[in-house]
């Protein structure tokens, strides 16, 4: 049952359970329940049937209602209450359906109220230039806005990441295709030359230059600039031409240090399985800071 499970979810198990005298409603029925439960060893025994000894004093209720209610002909403007028809039963545990039901009820109510107000000619909506104290402070609304923006940004970033992943995959496929193309082309050209040579051999070297077939690579196109994006980069450069970036501002000392470290450790890890602590490197202080003794003044000497 819905509300029971709600109660459960809010409670934490305690060490000692004390019976609250004020809260016990029907002692006899409660004992019945617990007894039946332990006998039958059921899993989920809540108050399945309504306890039979619950009081319901209808006349008393009606009498009290008449006592407290306002007189009949009070203007609706004082009460501002609307009764909305609830068409179908809403399942308590289905959060979305329940909230939707509440929302539709509120919407219906507002529409009815608005029509009433319009017919009476009274102001209903707040004009946009009416500034007054709101029930939530501006600081709080800023937080709300921040949270909403953060959520939106998260979603967008996820979208972007997904798209870039897709694009990368497609680009990779295209690249593979291109490489295959190129390899095929190369093979084809070599084959052609071979064929031509064989042909020539077979026909005895008597033809002149006019029988040279046109090779695809003879036009000057291959001497044109290759469409490489980083032209100055050599193909064996594993850093892709980025090794020297940001080095313009470094001091000489740091740069030398950096250079030395790069050559030793950079861009590909250890360069070969070479010995590290040898006679030469023992006295090699290129990697260390000069003037290290004048360092930390705060340190006690």
């Amino acid at each position, binding site marked *: 049952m819905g*509300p*029971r499970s709600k*109660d*459960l979810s*809010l409670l934490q*198990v*305690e060490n000692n*359970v004390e019976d*609250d005298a004020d809260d016990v*409603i*029907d002692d006899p029925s*409660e004992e019945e329940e*617990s007894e039946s*439960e*332990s006998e039958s060893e059921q899993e989920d*025994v*809540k*108050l399945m049937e*309504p*306890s*039979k000894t*619950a*009081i319901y*004093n209808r006349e*008393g*209720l009606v009498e009290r*209602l008449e*006592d*407290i*209610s*306002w*007189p009949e002909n009070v203007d609706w*403007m004082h009460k*501002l*209450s*609307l*009764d*909305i*028809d609830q068409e179908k039963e*809403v399942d*308590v545990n289905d959060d979305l359906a*329940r909230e939707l039901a509440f929302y539709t009820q*509120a*919407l219906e109510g*507002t529409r009815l*109220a*608005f029509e009433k*107000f319009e017919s009476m000619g009274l*102001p209903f*909506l*707040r*004009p946009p230039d*009416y500034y*007054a*104290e*709101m*029930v939530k402070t501006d600081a*709080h609304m800023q*937080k*709300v806005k921040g949270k909403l923006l953060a959520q939106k940004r998260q979603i967008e970033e996820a979208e972007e990441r997904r798209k870039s992943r897709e694009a990368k995959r497609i680009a990779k496929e295209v690249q593979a295709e291109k490489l295959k193309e190129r390899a095929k082309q190369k093979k084809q050209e070599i084959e052609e030359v071979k064929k031509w040579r064989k042909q020539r051999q077979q026909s005895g070297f008597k033809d002149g230059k006019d029988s040279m077939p046109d090779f695809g690579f003879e036009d000057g196109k291959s001497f044109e600039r290759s469409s490489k994006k980083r032209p100055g980069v050599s193909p064996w450069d594993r850093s892709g031409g980025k090794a020297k970036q940001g080095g313009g501002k470094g001091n000489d000392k740091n740069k030398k240090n950096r250079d030395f470290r790069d050559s030793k450790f950079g861009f590909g890890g250890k360069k070969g399985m070479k010995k590290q602590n040898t006679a030469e490197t023992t006295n090699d202080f290129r990697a260390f800071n000069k003037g290290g003794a004048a360092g930390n003044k705060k340190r006690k000497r």
Partner: protein
Amino acid sequence: MGKKRKHSETQAVEPKKKDEGAPERPKRTLMGWKDKEEVQTQTDSNPESPQFFRNKEKVMVTCSRRINYRYRHLMLNLVSLLPHCKKDNKVESRSSKGATLNELIELRGCSSALFFECRKHQDLYMWMARCPNGPSVKFLVNAVHTMEELKLTGNHLKGSRPLLTFSSNFEKDAHWKLLKEMIIQIFGTPKEHRKSKPYHDHVFVFSIVDDHIWFRNYQISVPHNESDKMVRGGLDKMTLVEVGPRFCLNPIKIFAGSFGGPTLYENPFYVSPNQIRALEKRKKAGKYAKKVKAKTRRKMHEQSNPLEPDEFADMWRE
């Protein structure tokens, strides 16, 4: 301060009455037949004549000691939603709770009260009572979400009069009708209250689902350009944004008096949270005993229904 008000009110009323010509019989009000000279008690709504109804409802909002932070925030949210309420200090007493509270209400000059009682730092009970001798209700409050939650993004004027919407279930039975009336009187802001604001930009939803009263508070937002007029078709573009707070009330008992008195109604489906917890613990506690029982049961069962000797039992025996 209260007295001045009373005087001015009676003075304002008298000339008006004289203008009406033949002296008519004073209307029957809640406090009996009223004479014009009689000083009206402040703690009552005064319908002298239908045209002159003034809602003078005042609600006192207090809580018990040892209240949880969450429930305290809920109480503060309600205080900001009801401009006609007076917040009072924490109430200490365990015994004679009713008497103390009644006294407090009289002292502050209020006509109703909302009392939040937090038991064991876990369960919140809300009392809704009408002061002098009116009925009172005790609820168990569940599913509390306060206005500070960032998921509830709406905002509205502080003190504007809410529209109260009730689901049609409220007419089904006597106790629901009584509850509806009490809710209208307590949660509805009196017209022309000092602290009330003119426009209506939020809606309260009270809906009965599964014998619980669910409360929601929505802000009415309509895109409109001019000041008061609605854009054509704006009624369709009206959206509601939830402001909060949210809670769910489970009625426990209705008493004839304020914070006591004979019980008029008990909820037959109500299980106190202590009972629920006790059942849980008992369920867990019985695990070992159940296991042992199951074992013996299995043994008995096996003994009583012996298996036929298996033809392959001796196959691998040396």
